[in-house]
């Protein structure tokens, strides 16, 4: 009887296999999650995220466009976050007691200046203690600032100054420390102190006291190299250096800024040439009014009506800092508002308004700077005004903002060896004119086979590319050459140096929430799987299962038939 059952079972398997039944079911699969870390120092946090998701998720380090979702690890948005799709979740590291979140200094500066260094330090849970910020360069502490921490969650702004001892590239490191506890953070940046000077041209169609005394103030400043042409009479000029013969001369573009005295003497062709200089060179032009304003000047300034006054005594003119940069008795200012006008110095009026006496407007990529303090040169004595400081500083700011022939922007200036950075090059003459033919070449100086490929971007005159930091630590330069111009930008390679840790918590939160995600802190990692599961909304899939399509059925089929045969032999039936 038993033998029958064995045989029936084997036959049943054979029959069912022939029938090949199908079973349909609904189930969920393990989602794939990509983990992108903001920087190399977030390795540990990225690993912890991966461990937390080891059950229920499949994780991929790095960007994976096929992933169900992406986890951004770190305090800032990673470069790879652009164009991500799917759910985004941010994981930010725990707040540290002290974090330098910003360290700014101008990268390229004239050497004969003191360089402002601005830092912002985020301090958590240290209210009432003292924050000490030390600026170090070349292993030496050059400045130390102590400030009290106002609250338990504060971002303390720190303003410092750095004087480079030598020209060239200097790495400056800010070290922030809570004095009583020793909690500290550091960040580095760099400056490139250059011996170059701002080329400034003084052009007076007629001898002008105002221009003369501004020129004298600027000539004694080592930040400038000053050329001048003063047309004292028809066909008679006194010059310094090699100034252009007229404003229509092409060599005008060699100057970052032009100061024009007696602008009422400008002819219509002069005005056209100045406007070309402003728009196609992006240059800076200073008009020192000293009396009547001509229609040609109005064409340049866009001012249709002027107002003027001659006061009984000189008045103190004010600037945004509340100081008195100039004094004047005779003033001229636009009667109507000018759109885009920036007022630098004004005269307080009796109705508590300010008359814009020194102001500027953009003209193309250039800037027109107009002074209506007609007789300010009378009151240039250091005891009366800051005339001697105002004009060099104004011209320094103007010259520094004038675009150079080649403008190089690097996405990073302090890099680790092998780190990738982006370069963006703007060729001024191509960007501002219709000339489109230019060839550019970029290389890393003193690094073999280091040509950096630059690709034209959608904007005219703009080229972009990427490069990898050399393995050698120290200052490096990327040198860009076009047909007639060469420019370089410095950067520092140092494995130990790192820039300020920007805190982009809000940006990460907004970025994640806009894509259906959320942000959690490092301390909440244990809740990540459950929240991630909810956030990803896993879609159940219908699966059809064919249970008999397995080779393993051969084993029970064979055993059943073998057993039945063995039993029969033992009984002597076979």
């Amino acid at each position, binding site marked *: 009887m038993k033998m029958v059952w064995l045989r029936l079972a084997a036959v049943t398997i054979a029959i069912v296999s022939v029938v090949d039944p199908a079973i349909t079911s609904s189930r969920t699969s393990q989602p794939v999650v990509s983990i992108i870390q903001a920087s190399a120092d977030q390795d540990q946090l990225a690993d912890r995220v991966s461990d937390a998701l080891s059950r229920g998720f499949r994780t991929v380090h790095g960007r994976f466009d096929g992933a169900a979702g992406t986890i951004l690890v770190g305090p800032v948005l990673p470069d790879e976050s652009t164009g991500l799709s799917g759910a985004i979740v941010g994981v930010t590291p725990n707040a540290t007691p002290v974090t330098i979140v910003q360290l*700014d200094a*101008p*990268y390229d*500066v*004239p050497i*004969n*200046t*003191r360089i*402002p260094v601005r830092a912002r330090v985020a301090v958590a849970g240290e209210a009432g203690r003292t924050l000490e910020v030390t600026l170090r360069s070349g*292993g*030496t502490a*050059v*400045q130390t600032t102590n400030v009290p921490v106002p609250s338990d969650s504060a971002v303390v702004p720190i303003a410092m*100054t750095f*004087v*480079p*001892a030598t020209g060239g590239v200097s790495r400056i490191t800010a070290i922030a420390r809570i004095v009583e506890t020793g909690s500290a953070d550091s960040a580095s940046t760099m400056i490139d102190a250059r011996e170059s*000077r701002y080329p400034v041209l003084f052009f007076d169609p007629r*001898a002008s*006291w105002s221009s*003369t005394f501004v020129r004298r103030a*600027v*000539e004694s*400043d*080592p930040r400038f190299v000053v050329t*001048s042409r*003063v047309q*004292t009479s028809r066909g*008679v000029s*006194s*010059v*310094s*250096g090699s100034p252009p013969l007229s404003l229509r001369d092409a060599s005008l573009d060699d100057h970052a800024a032009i100061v024009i005295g007696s602008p009422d003497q400008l002819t219509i062709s002069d005005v056209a040439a100045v406007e070309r200089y402003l728009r196609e060179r992006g240059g800076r032009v200073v008009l020192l009014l000293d009396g009547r304003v001509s229609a040609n000047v109005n064409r340049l300034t*866009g001012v249709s009506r002027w107002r003027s006054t001659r006061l*009984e*005594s*000189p*008045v*103190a003119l004010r600037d945004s800092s509340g100081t008195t940069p100039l004094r004047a008795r005779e003033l001229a200012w636009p009667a109507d508002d000018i759109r*885009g006008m920036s007022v630098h110095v004004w005269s307080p009026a*009796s109705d*508590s308004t300010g008359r814009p006496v020194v102001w500027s*407007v*953009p*003209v*193309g*990529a250039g800037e027109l700077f107009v002074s209506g303090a007609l007789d300010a040169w*009378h*009151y240039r004595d250091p*005891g*009366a005004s800051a005339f001697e*400081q105002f004009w*060099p*500083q104004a011209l320094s700011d103007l010259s*520094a*903002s004038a*675009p150079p022939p080649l403008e190089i922007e690097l996405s990073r200036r302090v890099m680790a060896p092998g780190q990738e950075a982006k370069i963006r090059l*703007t060729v*001024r003459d191509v960007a501002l004119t219709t000339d489109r033919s230019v060839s550019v070449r970029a290389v890393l100086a003193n690094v073999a086979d280091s040509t950096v490929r630059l690709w034209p971007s959608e*904007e005219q005159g703009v080229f972009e590319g990427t490069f990898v930091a050399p393995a050698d630590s120290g200052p490096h330069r990327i040198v860009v050459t076009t047909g007639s111009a060469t420019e370089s930008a410095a950067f520092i390679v140092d494995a130990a140096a790192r820039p300020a840790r920007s805190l982009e918590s809000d940006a990460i939160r907004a970025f994640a929430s806009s894509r259906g995600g959320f942000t959690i802190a490092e301390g909440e990692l244990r809740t990540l799987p459950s929240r991630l599961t909810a956030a990803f909304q896993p879609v159940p899939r219908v699966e059809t299962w064919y249970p008999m399509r397995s080779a393993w059925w051969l084993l029970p089929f064979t055993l059943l038939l073998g057993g039945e045969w063995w039993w029969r032999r033992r009984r002597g039936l076979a």
Partner: protein
Amino acid sequence: VRALPDASELRRFFGRVRTRLFLLRAVEGVAAGSVIGAALAALGALSPWLVGSVIVATGIVRTLLGDRWRFGWWRSNARLARDVERRTPVGRNLIVTAAELLESPRESSGYVPGLVVRRAAAMARELNPARIFPGRNAAAALAIAVVLLAGALALPATVVGRENARLTRVPGLPGIERVDVTVTPPSYSGLPATTLVNPSRIETLAGSRIQLSVAVEGADVLLETTSGTQQLSASGGAYTATVIADADGYIALEPRDSAGTRGSRHLIGLAVTADRPPRVTLAAPGRDLFFSNVPATIPVAVNAEDDLALASLKLRYTAVSGSGERFTFIEREVPLTLATPNARNWSATGTWRLDSLALAPGDLVVYRAVATDRRPGSAPVESDSYVLEVVTPGAIAAEGFAADDERDRYAVSQQMVILKTERLIARKASLPADSVADAARLLAAEQRQVRAEFVFMMGGELEDAALETAGTTELNEEAEAEAEGDILAGRLQNQGRIDMMRAIRSMSRASSALTEASLDQALRDERAALDNLMRAFSRTRFILRALTLRERIDLDRRLSGALLQTAGLSAPAASADPPARVAALRRLMADVSALAHDTARASATRAVDGALALLRSDPGSDTIRALAGRIQEVAREVITRQAPRASEKVDSLVRELSLLAETSLPVAPMEPSSFDALRLAGAWRDRNRPGRQP
């Protein structure tokens, strides 16, 4: 006791003994004090006044404590008797017994005590305290002590300065081993010479002679000061030189070997203090005097002080008599009795006999005190001048010589402007802004009116621009040279004119502030004007319309000239060099920073050379002299590896250098706007510019 016969005689004897012993102990105390004082004076630790105090104190202590150092030793006759018996064999203890009987009345009755006292008194009659207690030793000790003290005080006071750190020398290279400096102030100062060893800084009086003796391992030594460079002369195994300290600066010593190889420099900062002129005040009468009846005499008192030593103090007067175009001037002095408690503070009193001047109504006497110090060639310094005028009742001071008779009115007018401004400020809150501005402008007009009166009084020649731009202390050198005669005569010592100029300028500022309705600023300027006015009228007793220094327009600053002169004018492009001080500071920052991680000799030498370059650029700065000294010390410690916290010291130095450099440098512009931002701004304006297409 009174019953005992001869007791009073015995007591008188003890009294004489007591007096003798008091005298001897006092002499001994003074002698001991003199010896102590002599020792202290020789070491230069005490002034003569303090030495005298030590002597007196020692004498008193010795007298009061006696031989056994017990206070009150003189009260016990028995103790005095024992001292007497110890020094004479005749007593046989009888005097002691008698003294004890005298001190114990209960045991003194009876025959025997009386006999004892009588015999003791008989013995006392034979004894002479001066012989029992001879004063020879005490006198000799006192004489010796006095000689010692006199010798110590008479010795030239030489103060030996602290020996600074040993100078470090690098083997194989020329180096300075020791620098001995003797600073001898000018003889008139009376200050002692000072000896310094390896100093990094010398502070001395102007005109001092600095003698340098340099022990050096090398062939010669170069000495550099602000005046130039000189080679030191070899003398007795050392190199010597003499420098006259005339201004702040430095002394740099540089050793060299025969091959011309330079060794490490040694820098010495030199801070020179000028001898200030004396200050003299006329204490009495100290005011203008107007008499209709001239008294025969008036008392006078003068005070003067100087930082070192005064040389003379006089009261001079100028009597002016006459009228019209004929005036007679007589210059004389008032005899004074000087009181000179010390060299720096003198006072003098006297009686001025006016009757000898035979003053008549209308005559005028100008009087002032004059003092000089001991500096050779120093100009006499005068006090404020006052007038003594003989007037008829109701008359005023003579026109042209007296202070402006309306000066009070001017001051009152200025005070009135201040008062009105204060009232306006008080009412400001309750007035509309326009009304305040209008009232302020009216006040400005009043202020200008007051100012105009003063300008007229000063000669009426001062242009507004000149007033605004010229510094009050800046003098035209040419005009100053023309007025040299006046300066030498001391007529320009008076500061009244400058105060008047300051007052006028403060009035100008006040007027401007009132025009801008800046009342608080105006009030400050008005008060400054009033202060200057008060000073001017207190110092200068004469506001003459004819100024010794004529204000003129500087034609060079006006850039006047002929047009033809400009034809073809050509100059190279202006490219100013950075200030030498900044360049030196920047270089020094790099050199000092290198000391933190480079202990080689070359880095230390560079740092010291950099410090010298900085000293050359600004030798008058006390800050830089001190900094250079510290840099030299740190460099020395670094190369000898004796700097336990070298990096901290270097950091501190670099921070200070950086701060110094910052003050002379303009701020670098922050990172300019991007190219895109510039184009965007221009495009936006072009788009919004009426009637204009980009």
